[in-house]
């Protein structure tokens, strides 16, 4: 067999890398730790149900992108709800609830979207994650289904690897959970009404 010139192999490797870079799947693993929230807690007892599906959630905002955000979204929600309520318990199913809480919160992901520079004509990557917080009382009566969209973008995609840029935008979107809940959770009219009734009874 005739020996090949080393440049030939280098060229093949370069072409393979370019083809991989253009057509590959971006996987973002977000295992971030988040800071503690500065938010005044209220004297209520809440139970948060993190189902295994939520805790291991992998978002697929496009056919080429998957975001493993399950543990990171659980982490930030744990911190947020711990700051918003005086007493909080976290379970993976409702059957494990022992004491009667004032409110039960079931978070789930409805959908996720991504926008890349070739779509938005900007040098930024953007991520939207839409959550649904199903809020029930201890008897299982629905208080509300509250849809909570969160958003994050990178500062600049120039010279950033696509994976890093999407990871950065995802982290920003997950941090937005804390901001959105701190601002709006107690402003949800049905929650405000329900908790007012609870505090009136006690």
């Amino acid at each position: 067999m005739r020996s090949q010139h080393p440049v030939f192999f280098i060229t093949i490797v370069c072409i393979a890398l370019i083809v991989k870079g253009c057509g590959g799947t971006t996987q973002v693993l977000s295992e971030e730790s988040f800071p503690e929230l500065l938010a005044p807690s209220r004297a209520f007892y809440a139970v948060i149900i993190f189902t295994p599906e939520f805790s291991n959630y992998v978002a697929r905002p496009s056919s080429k992108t998957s975001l493993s955000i399950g543990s990171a979204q659980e982490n930030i929600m744990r911190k947020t709800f711990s700051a918003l309520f005086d007493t909080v318990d976290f379970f993976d199913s409702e059957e494990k609830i022992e004491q009667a809480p004032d409110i039960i919160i079931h978070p789930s992901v409805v959908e996720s979207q991504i926008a890349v520079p070739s779509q938005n004509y900007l040098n930024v990557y953007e991520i939207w994650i839409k959550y649904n917080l199903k809020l029930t009382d201890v008897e299982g009566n629905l208080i509300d289904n509250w849809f909570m969209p969160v958003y994050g973008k990178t500062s600049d995609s120039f010279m950033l690897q696509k994976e890093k840029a999407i990871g950065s935008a995802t982290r920003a979107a997950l941090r937005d959970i804390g901001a959105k809940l701190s601002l709006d959770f107690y402003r949800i009219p049905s929650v405000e009404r329900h908790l007012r009734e609870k505090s009136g009874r006690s």
Partner: protein
Amino acid sequence: MPLVINCILIFILTACNTTTTIDEYRSFDEGVTVSSEETIALLGRRDAGHYETDDEFVACVGDKLRSLSLNVLPERRLIDALYPWLEPRTAPKGLLRMRQLIQEPLINKAITERGIRFLIWLDGSTETLDRNGSISCAAGPGGAGCFGFATWDKASVYEAIVWDLSDVSEVARVRVDSEGTSYLIGAIAPIPLLTPVKSDACKGLSSQLEAIFN
């Protein structure tokens, strides 16, 4: 051959020019005295839809101020310390909202514990305005190379607004505009001649801030 090298060197030395313009507004003429117990915090604006003040620029201004022996709190530490009140969704856009925030006992405590007296908002971006020329690269079994000539103009526009958190007032406002042209020459190997537009904007803005804090 030495002639070619000389030509390239002359080109490098003369071509990459940057123009920096500084507009300054201060609410009073005297500088501000910062004691050794007081800290300056820097924060980039990130609420605009089409751009974000990049971390790199904020860190550059922070490093310049730190070199004057001022206590400067890194941006990330400030954002984490006051989380979630300095996120793009929640960050105060004006003094009125800042006054409301600072009245919250938890936020006030976090600011006081860190000795933060001045908050500098940095807002702006560096954009590519115009591109001309083209450069193409090719690779084959016999070798690889780039040929052509490309230029692009970049402009940096940044504004710094200084808030005094002791009485929640605006102390000063400084703006810097910086423009420059960069070149890329393809002569087998690509030779970039980059104009440090953002770096010049950082230097310009930092020198104005240095004049404010004495």
